[in-house]
């Protein structure tokens, strides 16, 4: 049997060995409990978010959390229900063209997934046209863009413009984040929201039309 309370606490404490052992156990012996396991992991991620806000945890801890969470998801994948839950909201995630940084993006990915959102991660240095194309292909309506280098702000602006040129800007919700982004630059690139923390970005995506 799986102790879900303990799992959530272990996740919150970043106890990698215990969390991954529980994920393996669930995938092999308790596949029907997968949903509850995911909920426990998500609760753990919430605890981590709180501790980050309370200055107990730092960026390094968030990265580590993201990795444990992603690995656990991979271990649980064989036990997922066969049909993808089509009511899951999709978020297209990318680091814009000219920027290779992905640490922040990956943390956001883990947090979004822990909230039950489906994330399509396009990677780094992604051209505006590609982001638009993939968004349309995936039928997604939420786009999250990341950039650390201020030289990539122009690429961010081009990406938002590309959605307008494709005639779909009104249907898409765009949130931006990263070290070079703030409320002012978010306005400059004409995004809908500035996600200062992963939690803020997650809250925006949960509230947006999917």
């Amino acid at each position, binding site marked *: 049997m799986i102790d879900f309370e303990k799992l959530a606490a272990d996740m919150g404490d970043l106890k990698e060995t215990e969390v991954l052992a529980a994920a393996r156990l669930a995938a092999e012996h308790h596949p029907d409990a997968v949903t509850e396991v995911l909920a426990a992991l998500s609760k753990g991620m919430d605890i981590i978010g709180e501790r980050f806000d309370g*200055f*107990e*945890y*730092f*960026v*390094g*801890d968030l*990265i*580590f959390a993201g*990795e444990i969470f992603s690995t656990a998801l991979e271990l649980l994948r064989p036990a997922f229900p066969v049909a993808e839950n089509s009511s899951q909201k999709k978020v297209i995630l990318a680091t814009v063209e*000219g*920027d*290779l*940084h*992905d*640490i922040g993006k*990956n943390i956001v990915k883990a947090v979004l997934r822990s909230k039950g959102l489906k994330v399509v991660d396009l990677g780094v*240095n992604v051209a505006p046209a590609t982001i638009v194309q993939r968004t349309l292909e995936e039928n997604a309506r939420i786009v999250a863009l990341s950039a650390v280098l201020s*030289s990539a702000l122009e690429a961010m602006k081009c990406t938002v413009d590309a959605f307008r040129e494709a005639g779909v800007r009104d249907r898409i919700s765009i949130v931006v984040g990263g070290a070079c982004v703030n409320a002012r630059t978010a306005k400059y690139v004409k995004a809908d929201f500035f996600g200062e923390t992963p939690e803020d970005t997650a809250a925006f995506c949960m509230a947006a039309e999917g």
Partner: protein
Amino acid sequence: MPTVHILPKDVYAEVPRGTGLMEVLRQVGDFPDTPCGGRGICGKCSVTAEGKKVLACQTRVERDMTVVLPEAQQLQVLRTGVERSFQMDPLRPGPLLAVDIGTTSVVCFLLDGTDGRELASASALNAQSSFGADVISRIRAALSGELSRERDVIRAQLDGLIREVCGKANVDPAAVGVVSVVGNPTMQQLLLGISPENLAGVPFDPVLTQAESVECREILPVCERALLLIVPDIAGYIGADTMGCVLATGLYEAEELTLLVDIGTNGEMVLGSRERMIACSTAAGPALEGAHIRFGMRGAEGAIDHVRRDGETIRCTVIGGGEARGICGSGLIDAAAVLLEAGVLNRRGRIQTTAERDGQRCVDLTEGVYLTQDDIRQIQMAKGAICAGVQLLAKQLDRPVSDIRRVLLAGAFGSYMDPESACRIGLLPEELRGRITAVGNAAGTGARLLACDRGEFARSQFLKEKIEFLELASLPEFSGTFARAMNFREAKQ
């Protein structure tokens, strides 16, 4: 099979036809190293074969021959941090200048043309600081129309330093034969007036990839007769200054696995030995130079430079001996180590005491100076980057970190930092405790070697092709390694 008669040793070697002459000489144990790697560039293997001067690396044995080796050259010894022997063989006769253009400080050495000894030196804060303190700002300025101004500013400054250094030794700048320059890729390109757009974006490729010499008067007219040596950059963020460090420390011929680190904003490092060398840039950030720290400052008067624990109290030493008004990099590292040992910091870097100022926890070091929670986080990020760099380089070489037998710290910072504290906080992996030495301004030493010995200049071209570059951010294990390296090891209970 033909026979080679080797003089003055007076030995005979019978070898199959077509054997390279260099190989024959190596077999009889009689040859100095080949800086250019046997490409026929440096001229160091010149011998007399059958009365004609030839390059051993370009000659094959076709029939019986007599080969006369040149007299053993007198070796000079440089004793600045690392002992290094070299030959006096500059590309042009006359006094020599060696210049190290750092982002923050510029240093210029005037050397005697016959034995390479230092006659005078001068240094100054890089005048380009008006365009920004760091490389990124200067690149940005160049790309927004300031390139020629930045170029002119550094050239004018070098002109002044050259005159100063020549004046001190009573040498006419017009007599100088060779001027060697080392610097990071941005500094080099700005000096030459080459737009740094290659350094502003992916894939960050260097443009100065060839060891080249140009007439100095085209760049620095004050040395109208001299040859200016342009030393190749290894990668977009690993420059001729790192190349200078590799030359100065002799890393390329080390028998044992050696790590060379320049602890500073860019945190360049090279790991390897004579078999293989890999370099990376860790972008540690300026925290260790005092930036983004509440009371952070450079190593100047009033800076806490060392911190020790004395029972229940913290003892700080201050540069200049007076009252502390801030703390510099070496002080930060010591402080973190002390706080960790005292249990004031936990392994995640959280300050455990609850005293706060301006909404965050802080720890007092002296009456006027304290460290904030943000300061600790900055230290974690910087030390995490550097430690991760070492671990990933070792992984790339498929060796455990503990196999590294020597760690050489280049740069002024390396000379002031306490290696014990550095290992305690995990700035350098703890396995490397006891194997660390400071080698001072190795880049400057490299510049001196390059000016004195054309063989070293040729070697830089060879090394440019030999040293591999590892782009840390592209490794899938980068973020995990970085994250783990940011933590501390808690004090043993």
